[in-house]
C-alpha cells in the first residue's frame, strides 16, 4: 500500500492561495478514478478536483472554507502499490527543480521533501519528462515573479500573445524556471472564455474581460474616412418630415402594374429621382469641396452614392449618372451595386467618385439620424423609417404615412437656408409625386 498525494493545484491567475470550498469525500471513503473529491475556488472560477486514482481517503489537508497555499497537500489517498509519495522523482510536480535548487518562496510546501525512501536520483536530469499528469494534480512548483520581472516566454509565444491581445504578465508559467509554455497560454485563454459563461456562480458577476481588436483593412479605412469627414467638415444637420402617403400609393400601384416585368421598386429609386430633380435647382449640393485647394466643384452628372452595409463594414457604392436613369434602371443598378459590394466584387470605379450620397437603414431607419458626410462631398441625405401617424389635415385627424429625412451639409459651403430650401424642394416633390416626372 502506498499513499498518493494530491496537492492544491495552481489554477493560474498568478495567485498563491486557493479557497477550499467543499469536500465531496471524507476520511475512510473509497474513491474511484475521476470521482470528484473537492471544489476549490479562486476569485475567478470554481474548479472541481477529480481523483486520478482508486483508493481510500487517508487524510484531508484542510477544512471547507479554509484558504490553502498552492502546492499544499490537499488530500492523501491510500492506493494499491506504490503511491506517489514514494516516487517523487518520477512526478512532474517539480520540473527542472533539481534538489539543489533553493526552496521556492511562493509555495514552500511544494519543495519536494527529498523523498526519504527515494532511490538516489541518477543525474539531476530532473527535466526528464515524467509521465504526463493524469489529472490536474499537484501544481508545478510555482516560481513567483518578482515585481518588474519580465514574464519568461519564447519569441513565438510572445508574438502569439500579442496577436491574441494577452498580457503575458498575467499568465502563469508552468515550464522550467516559470517559463510560459504554449499550453499555459492556451489554458489562460480557454479559462478566459469559460469565465465569460454564466456557468460559474451567477450572471451578475463582474466581468473583467477585455479584448483589444486591431483596426485593419476596411475597418481602418472606414475609421479614417469618418474621422477625416468629422475633422474637416462642420456638419449642419436638418430634419424634416415628409408625408409619403401619395408616394407609397404610387409605388404600390407601380409594383402592382409593372412589378412582375420590371422588378419591384423600393423607396430609394423614387428618392433618387427626387434628388435628381431638386438638384437642378440646387447645383451647389451636388459638389465636392477640395478644402486644401479651396475649390468647390459642382457636377452636372449626379453620381449617387448609396451607403451599403456589408459583412466587412460600411461601403458606399456609386450609381453613375442617376439623372439619366428611369425608376427601374435606378432600382436594378442599386441592387446590382449592393450585391457587388457585399460579395466583394465591386470595382474601384463602383466605389468612388460619388457627388452626393443617400444613407438608408430601411426598416431600422429610426426617427432621426445624423449622417456623416462622405468627404469631400457637401451633402448627405439620410432616410428614416416610414410610419403611419395621426396627422391634422384641414382641421381633422387623418392617418398618414410619414417619413423623416435627416440630412447633413458642409456648413462651410452650404448655408443653412439653402440646405433647408433644398430639403423642402425634395419634400415638395415626394409629397406630390407626379412632379417627379415633369420634364
Amino acid at each position, binding site marked *: 500500500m502506498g499513499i498518493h498525494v494530491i496537492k492544491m493545484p495552481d489554477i493560474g491567475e498568478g495567485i498563491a492561495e486557493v479557497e477550499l470550498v467543499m469536500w465531496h469525500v471524507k476520511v475512510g471513503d473509497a474513491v474511484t478514478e475521476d470521482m470528484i473529491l473537492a471544489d476549490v475556488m479562486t476569485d475567478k472560477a470554481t474548479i472541481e478536483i477529480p481523483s486520478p486514482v482508486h483508493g481510500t481517503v487517508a487524510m484531508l489537508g484542510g477544512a471547507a472554507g479554509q484558504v490553502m497555499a498552492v502546492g499544499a497537500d490537499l488530500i492523501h489517498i491510500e492506493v494499491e502499490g506504490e503511491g506517489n509519495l514514494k516516487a517523487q522523482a518520477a512526478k512532474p510536480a517539480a520540473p*527542472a*527543480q*533539481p534538489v*539543489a*535548487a*533553493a526552496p*521556492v518562496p511562493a509555495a514552500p510546501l511544494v519543495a519536494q521533501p527529498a523523498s526519504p525512501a527515494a532511490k538516489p536520483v541518477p543525474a*539531476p*536530469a*530532473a*527535466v526528464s519528462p515524467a509521465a504526463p499528469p493524469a489529472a490536474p494534480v499537484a501544481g508545478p512548483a510555482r*516560481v513567483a515573479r518578482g515585481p518588474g520581472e*519580465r514574464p*519568461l*516566454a*519564447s*519569441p513565438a509565444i*510572445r*508574438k502569439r500573445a*500579442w*496577436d491574441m*491581445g494577452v498580457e503575458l504578465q498575467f499568465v502563469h508559467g508552468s*515550464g*522550467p*524556471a*516559470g*517559463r510560459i509554455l504554449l499550453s499555459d497560454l492556451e489554458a489562460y485563454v480557454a479559462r478566459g472564455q469559460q469565465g465569460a459563461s454564466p456557468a460559474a456562480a451567477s450572471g451578475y458577476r463582474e466581468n473583467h474581460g477585455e479584448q*483589444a481588436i*486591431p*483596426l*485593419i*483593412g476596411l475597418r*481602418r479605412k472606414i475609421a479614417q474616412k469618418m474621422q477625416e469627414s468629422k475633422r474637416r467638415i462642420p456638419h449642419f444637420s436638418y430634419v424634416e418630415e415628409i408625408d409619403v402617403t401619395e408616394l407609397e400609393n404610387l409605388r404600390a400601384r407601380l409594383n402592382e402594374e409593372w412589378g412582375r416585368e420590371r422588378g419591384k421598386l423600393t423607396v430609394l429609386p423614387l428618392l433618387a429621382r427626387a434628388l435628381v430633380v431638386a438638384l437642378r435647382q440646387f447645383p451647389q449640393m451636388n459638389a465636392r469641396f477640395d478644402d486644401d485647394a479651396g475649390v468647390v466643384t459642382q457636377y452636372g452628372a449626379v453620381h449617387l452614392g448609396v451607403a451599403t452595409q456589408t459583412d466587412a463594414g460600411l461601403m458606399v457604392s456609386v450609381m453613375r449618372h442617376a439623372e439619366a436613369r428611369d425608376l427601374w434602371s435606378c432600382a436594378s443598378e442599386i441592387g446590382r451595386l449592393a450585391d457587388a459590394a457585399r460579395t466583394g466584387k465591386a470595382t474601384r470605379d463602383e466605389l468612388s467618385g460619388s457627388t452626393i450620397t443617400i444613407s438608408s437603414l430601411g426598416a431600422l431607419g429610426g426617427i432621426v439620424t445624423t449622417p456623416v458626410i462622405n468627404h469631400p462631398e457637401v451633402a448627405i441625405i439620410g432616410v428614416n423609417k416610414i410610419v403611419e401617424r395621426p396627422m391634422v389635415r384641414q382641421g381633422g385627424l387623418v392617418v398618414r404615412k410619414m417619413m423623416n429625412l435627416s440630412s447633413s451639409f458642409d456648413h462651410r459651403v452650404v448655408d443653412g437656408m439653402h440646405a433647408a430650401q433644398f430639403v423642402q424642394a425634395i419634400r415638395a416633390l415626394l409629397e406630390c409625386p407626379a412632379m417627379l416626372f415633369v420634364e
Partner: protein
Amino acid sequence: MNQHTTTLLVVGGGPGGYIAAIRAGQLGIPTTLVEAGELGGTCLNVGCIPSKALIHAAEEFEKASHFASGSALGISVQAPRIDIGQTVLWKDGIVARLTGGVAALLKRSGVRVVKGWANIVDGKTVEVIRDGESPQRIGCEHLLLATGSHATELPFMPFGGPVISATEALSPKTVPGKLVVVGAGYIGLELGIAYAKLGAQVHVVEAQERILPAYDADLTRPVAIALKGLDIETHLGCSVLGLDEGGGAVRIRNAAGEESSLNADQVLVAVGRRPSTRGFGLEKLRIDMDGHFIKVDDQCRTSMRDVWAIGDVTGEPMLAHRAMAQGEMVAEIISGKRRHFSPAAIAAVCFTDPEVVVVGATPQAARAQGIDCIDAMFPFAANGRAMSLESKDGFVRVVARRDNHLIVGWQAVGKAVSELSAAFAQSIEMGATLEDVGGTIHAHPTLGEAIQEAALRALGHALHI
C-alpha cells in the same frame, strides 16, 4: 515640383531601413525608401561586411606569413606577398554583390527607391534633393527615420590627411608603415589587428585602463595576449593631445601626466559613433530626444504620431541586427499587427582575434541588477576541436540564476566564437535553464561542446575538466 505620396516613407537604406521597407512591401504597404548614398548603409558599405572581408584577408595573409617562418603543422611557404589593391577590389566586389542584392530584394517587394538627400518638411512630407535635379516632394502617412550613425570626430584632430576613420581604413591604397589607432573599442581593435597582420606597425591608444573597456577583464585577457603576439603596442590610460606640428606623429599623455609622441603614417580615430540626427531637418519635427538619440518607445514610436525611428539613431546598442529587428517590427505594426520590441538579449560580437561574444548579462551586470546568480566557464584548452584549430586560448562562460537556473547571459572569447552567438541568443530567448543546455547533446568534436560543458560546470558536474 515632382511629387508623389506613399503610405510608408523610409529615410535611410541601411540594414534597419531596407529591412523595414522589404517587410512593409511584403505586407502590401505602399513604401518609398530614400537613400543618399549606397543601399545597405554603414553595415554593407563601410562597416560590418567590408571590415570582415579585410579581417579575413589579413588573417589569410598572416597565416601564410606565419608558415614562412616554419610551422608546427609542417607547412612551409616562400615569403608571401599581398597586393592590397587587389584585396580592396575583392572586398568591393563582395560589397557590390550585397548592395545589389538589397536593391533586388527591395524591387521584388515593390518598394520605390528614391536616390537623394532627404529633407524633412513636416511629419508627413519629405523633400528629396539630388544634384542637378529639381527637388522631389514625397508625402506619406508614416515616416520612418533610419538615418544611422557616423564616426565620432576628435575636435582637436579632425578627419583629413593622415587622420582617417574606419571608412577610409577599409579601402587602403597602401598599408601604412606605422599606424596609430585611437580608441581600443571593437572597431579600433578589429582594424588595428587586421593592419598589424597586413604588416603595419600598430600602436593603440586608449584613455581607459583596459582594452575593450565595455567588457570585463577575464573576457579581454586573451585578446590582450594576442595583441602582444602581434607586436601591437597598447598605450592604456593615455589621452591623445593631437598631431605634432609636422603631422607625422601623435602626441599623447599618460596618467602620470608625462607627454610623449608616437610616429604615425596614418592615424585611425575609432572613438565611437554618433547618431546621425543633423542635416535632414529633424529639428523641424521638435520630437523628444534622449541625449543625442531620438527617443522611442518599445514600438519605436517617436513622440510624434506616425513618425517612427529605428537603429543607431535611437540609441545603444548600435548594432545592425537590432536595427533590422526594429525595422521588421515597425513594418508589422503599421500593417496592423500588434508587436513590441522586447528581445531578451541582443548579441554583441567583436571580430578581434580571438573573437569576443557577449549575449545577455555578464556575472557583474547580473549581480548589479540584484540577481543572485551562478556563473561557470569552460576553457577551450579542454576542448578537442579548439586544440585542432590551434586556438586553445579563450573560454565559454554562462551566467544563470541560482534559484531556478534560468540562463541570463553567455560570454565567450576564442577563435570563431562569433558563430556561437546564435546558440547563446536562442537559449536566452527560449528561456532555457542550465539543465536544458546541459541536457542537449552537442556534436563532438566542435567548439559548441564548450557551451554544454559550461552549463554542466555551473551545475557542478562538468565532464571534461
